[in-house]
């Protein structure tokens, strides 16, 4: 290490641009901050020795100085920004609309957007925000945050602690705010000091040299907010682990009690009822809007009971103990033992049961001889009716469709489109008759049936879609966001303002510096030197064209 001793006596580390104590530009290092080409000094990091600017030989040095560059950081941000934009050009795969001709990404993008869509899909842009390189990009921004902050914070902290009220003349006359006054009395200086104090400046003095300073803590704002961002990035990594984050979706029918997936069989949910409420179209307030835009839902709600399963003997039916009775609504999730349940969707008009009547085929009036009800979730194999009829349920297709080969089948196990093959045994013990029943279908296989079976009534219920989440990382995101906000407010809403008064012969040199809000600093100085001979500082900003 080649320490540099300044003429003021302070020993600076290698690579220092402006003496930490008196601010005198150190010869030979001025190119580092570009001071050699300008009249004004670059005050950004107080001209301290930064590792990235000093050591550039080894591989580690090179990596360090690469990531410590704000320029590199800005480029990373710009690349992430452009990538994010591209990701919104077409819908991401999870947002492919439900009514699209095909929801298969391999088909959807080309079908919908042509060649560009195909390329978009093949480049993987349809899952942009999960792609490895997008995550790497965010990771690199994180690395840049850490290195940038360390590279600057430590020397800056040191320099601001060491700084002396007595500054070198060159330091002062190369500040943006500067003035020289030939003749100033001691009373005037005292008056300025008092006024600066009144404006809450902290005054330090050394042989008549005065430093007035306020808002130094705002200099730490950027480092604080970067810590917040790093916590957020770490939380995002944590969130990818199943211990910290669970995400399940469950459909529960009204009246049904089922185990909640993702809870290791420990919790059960009962859907007591689902409510879909609409805004009143006769409500004076909204009449016009509803008339022109159609009905608007006002509430989606599932009344649930959550049970905890007590299972003493493995394999035995668990004993359910109710632990929570709650109404889940949009914006009002239910919470129990670290789990949160959100109202996420519903299905309307799923069949619960169907009632059929039997009548004589040639009875025009179709008067019911008798009727029976099939519980679609728990159908019986045989229905014996009071009138002596016996109905055997031969086949049951809860979600009926005809396969390509023309064979009836069920698409799912849910009774969305139930169909049945029933065998009717009339009481007179004549030949049994076979009928095929479905919604809008009533097929008599032989065409010779004496009795016809027809849908008389049906019962529907709602199915409520609930999302179960466990997110133990939320607290970290919260802390990260709070620290970020503190840091960003600290750095943006306060400024580090300094005024130097440097006695010279009978007069003074006056200089000022702030990291932001020069307008505010100039008003402070104006107020401080009111009614004195001291000349107002001149703003010598070198605006870039």
């Amino acid at each position, binding site marked *: 290490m080649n320490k540099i001793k300044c003429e003021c006596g302070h020993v600076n580390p290698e690579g220092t641009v402006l003496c930490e104590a008196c601010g005198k530009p150190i010869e030979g290092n001025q190119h580092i901050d570009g001071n050699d080409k300008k009249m004004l000094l670059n005050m950004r990091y107080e001209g301290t020795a930064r590792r990235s600017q000093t050591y550039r030989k080894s591989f580690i040095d090179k990596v360090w100085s690469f990531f410590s560059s704000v320029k590199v950081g800005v480029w990373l941000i710009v690349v992430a920004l452009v990538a994010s934009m591209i990701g919104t050009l077409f819908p991401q795969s999870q947002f492919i609309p439900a009514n699209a001709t095909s929801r298969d990404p391999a088909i959807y993008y080309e079908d919908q957007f042509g060649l560009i869509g195909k390329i978009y899909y093949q480049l993987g842009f349809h899952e942009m925000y999960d792609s490895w390189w997008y995550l790497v990009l965010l990771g690199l921004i994180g690395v840049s945050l850490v290195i940038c902050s360390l590279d600057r914070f430590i020397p800056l902290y040191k320099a601001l602690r060491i700084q002396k009220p007595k500054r070198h003349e060159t330091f002062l006359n190369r500040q943006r705010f500067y003035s020289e006054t030939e003749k100033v009395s001691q009373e005037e200086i005292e008056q300025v000091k008092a006024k600066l104090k009144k404006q809450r400046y902290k005054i330090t003095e050394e042989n008549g040299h005065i430093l007035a300073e306020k808002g130094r803590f705002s200099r730490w704002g950027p480092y604080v907010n970067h810590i917040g961002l790093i916590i957020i990035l770490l939380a995002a990594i944590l969130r990818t682990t199943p211990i910290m984050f669970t995400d399940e979706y469950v459909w529960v029918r009204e009246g049904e009690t089922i185990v909640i997936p993702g809870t290791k069989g420990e919790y059960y949910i009962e859907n007591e009822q689902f409510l879909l409420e609409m805004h009143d179209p006769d409500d004076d307030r909204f009449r*016009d*809007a509803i008339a022109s835009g159609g009905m608007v839902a006002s*509430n989606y709600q599932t009344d649930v009971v959550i049970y905890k399963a007590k299972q003493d003997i493995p394999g035995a039916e668990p004993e359910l103990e109710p632990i929570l009775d709650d109404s889940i609504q949009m914006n009002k999730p239910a919470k129990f033992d670290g789990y949160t349940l959100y109202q996420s969707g519903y299905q309307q008009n799923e069949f619960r049961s169907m009632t059929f009547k039997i009548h004589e085929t040639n009875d025009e009036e179709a008067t019911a001889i008798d009727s029976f009800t099939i519980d679609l979730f728990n159908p019986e194999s045989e229905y014996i009716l009071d009138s002596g009829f016996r109905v055997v349920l031969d086949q049951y297709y809860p979600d009926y469709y005809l396969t390509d080969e023309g064979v009836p089948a069920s698409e799912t196990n849910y009774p969305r489109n139930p169909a049945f093959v029933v065998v009717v045994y009339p009481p007179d013990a004549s030949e049994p008759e076979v009928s095929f029943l479905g919604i809008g279908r009533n097929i008599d296989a032989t065409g010779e049936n004496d009795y016809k079976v027809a849908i008389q009534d049906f019962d529907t219920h709602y199915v409520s879609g609930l999302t179960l989440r466990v997110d133990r990382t939320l607290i970290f995101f919260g802390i990260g966001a709070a620290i970020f*906000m503190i840091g960003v407010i600290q750095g*943006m809403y306060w400024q580090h303002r300094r005024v130097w008064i440097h006695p010279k012969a009978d007069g003074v040199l006056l200089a000022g510096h702030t990291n932001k809000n020069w307008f505010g600093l100039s008003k402070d100085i104006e107020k401080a030197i009111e009614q004195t001979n001291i000349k107002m500082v001149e703003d010598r*900003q070198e605006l870039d*064209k």
Partner: protein
Amino acid sequence: MDLVSLSGNLLYAAFILYLIATLFFGATIRQKDSKVKKKGISGNIAITITILGFLSHFGYFITRWMSSGHAPLGNMFEFVTFLGMAMILAFIIIYFMYRLSFLGLFALPIAMLIIAYASMFPSEVAPLVPSLNSHWLYIHVSTVAIGQGILFISFVAGLMYLIKEIDQSKRTSKNTWLEVILYTAFLFIGFIVITTVFNIMGYKATFEYQEGTQMVTTEYHLPAIAAPNNGVLITEEVMEPWFEAPTWMQGADAGRKFNTVIWSVFSGTIIYLLTVLILRKRVGAALQPLLRNVKADLLDEIMYRAVAIGFPIFTLGGLIFAAIWAQIAWGRFWGWDPKEVWALITWFFYAAFLHLRLSRGWHGEKSGWLAVVGFGIIMFNLIVVNLVLAGLHSYA
């Protein structure tokens, strides 16, 4: 008078007051002395009228809230009107920090343009859908709007800087780009004028078309130049469409929106060309002399300061509050919905802006361009993302 019409009248009054205030701000140009303390009477009158306008605007907001029972932030009309109010508030705050009257001459007309734009959307008091029914609606939306309003001031100062500093003596790529930015304002004017004209005429044409697996109808209020893709005109005795919107245009009513864009470009361009014809020079060149007395470095300072103040508020409202609400409503605080992504893009952009300000060479003119682009991103998120890129936020 019932609350709803009172509310409408207050908004109307606010608009008129802003217009009058602009004229008074305009009168400050004549005063040669632009010293901070001797602003003269006209600047004081102007800011007083602006504040009255703001109070009236605020009255609109409160009365509408009272009449509907929820904060009027639920659809495009209500949000954009509120954004206009936030812009005026931001202007008032910055005005008292810097006392720069000229800022009003530019900020007020642009804010008025935003308010007029809002009134082109359906303005009936609509009921709230369950997903918006939360206190976070006002917390999130109003914070975002205030953040954006302050960033808007940075845009205004940046634009003024560019108008003032860019050489207009001969045609260059810089002053051409500046002209493009000003031309964009004319597109908004074009949209407002043409929509108003056909609204007064009560023009209607209905189309039927296939969307995914359903048949839907859409109602045009402007003569159809572009029909919906595979759309069939149902209304009789109206103009036949010239062509169909391309297939790749997504989302509800893509064809109608595309048609509106065509009309806006068409009428905006005519108004722009007429303006240039009357002025006999670029609009930028015509505005330049107005800014003769403003100090460029003060504009630079305001532009940066506004970002410094607006950025944390935007972050709080647009990302943090947004995430908290998303967590409560949907169980995920972040879902890469287009609106969320564009809020992140805005945040990235202003973060880059603030970092670039640390370097030499990025003050002044380059900053001015960045401030303009940043506001462009905000407007893109408001208009294109809401209306074109389908997502959870497309509530208009």
